[in-house]
């Protein structure tokens, strides 16, 4: 038996936002006569406004840590290479590499600071007064 189709009909207003779970385009949908706001992507991931906020916060943190990782790795790699270059008398190359390693280490610290300073909004019940229409 074929699996049932869970894909949403593509009604709703396409946004410029992407789905945190698959990177597809998200559409904004207005449900019911009170105007409950939900987001749905092409393959069927769905979010309330609050859930999308949480997912985007997690996505942001993941990507910031990815940047920290890239910078930490660059620092380590360049540091090792600079050491080898020094040992082999390639002093100009060694100096360049050490400069870039130091830069990467500093950038990593900056982004760690950003992660530590980020504060998600506290989602309370007032979020349900948000409507599609109005200012």
């Amino acid at each position, binding site marked *: *038996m074929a699996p049932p189709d869970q894909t949403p009909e593509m009604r709703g207003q396409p946004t410029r936002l992407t789905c945190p779970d*698959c990177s597809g385009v998200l559409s904004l949908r207005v*449900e019911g006569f009170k105007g409950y706001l939900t987001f749905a992507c092409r393959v069927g991931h769905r979010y309330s406004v609050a859930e999308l906020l949480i997912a985007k916060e997690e996505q942001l943190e993941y990507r910031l840590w990815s940047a920290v990782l890239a910078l930490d790795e660059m620092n380590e790699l360049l540091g090792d290479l600079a050491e080898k270059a020094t040992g082999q008398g390639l002093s100009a190359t060694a100096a360049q590499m050490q400069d870039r390693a130091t830069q990467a280490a500093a950038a990593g610290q900056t982004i760690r600071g950003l992660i530590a300073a980020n504060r998600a909004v506290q989602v309370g*019940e007032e979020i*349900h007064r948000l409507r599609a229409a109005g200012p």
Partner: protein
Amino acid sequence: MINAERIARDVICIGMSAGGVEAIMRLVALFPQDLPAAVAFVIHRSPLHESNLPSLLNRRSRLPVSEPVDGEPVARGRIYAAPRDQHMLVDDGLIRLCRGAKEHRTRPAIDPLFRSAAATCGRRVVGVLLSGAGDDGVAGLIAIKAAAGVSLVQDPAEARHPTMPRTAIAEDDVDAVLTIESLARAIRALAAGEPFEPPARSEQRPLPGRGSCPGREVS
């Protein structure tokens, strides 16, 4: 008055999250042995662990409780619990399980059950949201209402985690806000195609969340 039209509402779909175990334990214990309806429920759960909830419920319920297999026919007098890591849908008289896209960041989620029941069973459906945090189930209840079904929520004052019922009240035109005991009586009446008169307002405390929807009475 709910169901003045005397339609037999024999597909009962129930959703819950945090605090839902206690709520569903109390609710199923109040279902009569001859309940002329199929009951399907989703509780948010870990995708990794089997649950002892069906066996706990079987000790209290007069109706058999089980996690269905894909393609099992929907039968009256049975209670279906959504298995781990799959959405549970009602489709053309069958229970369908699918590992589809997560909704509300969870699977099983309540909305797919409610939406599929609304699409295939229309006004035979009663949607019920019990205790829970978060927003799953609200869009599903709206879909059930749009298909001429009935939507009921647990009284937030009674629910251990009131957010889900409160959100439903704020966002949907729910037919009644009821305690577990009244929910059991309502489900019994609706399944039998009888009207149900919600208890007098005095039983119900003020409903948080109603301030955001002027002009709507929850009766």
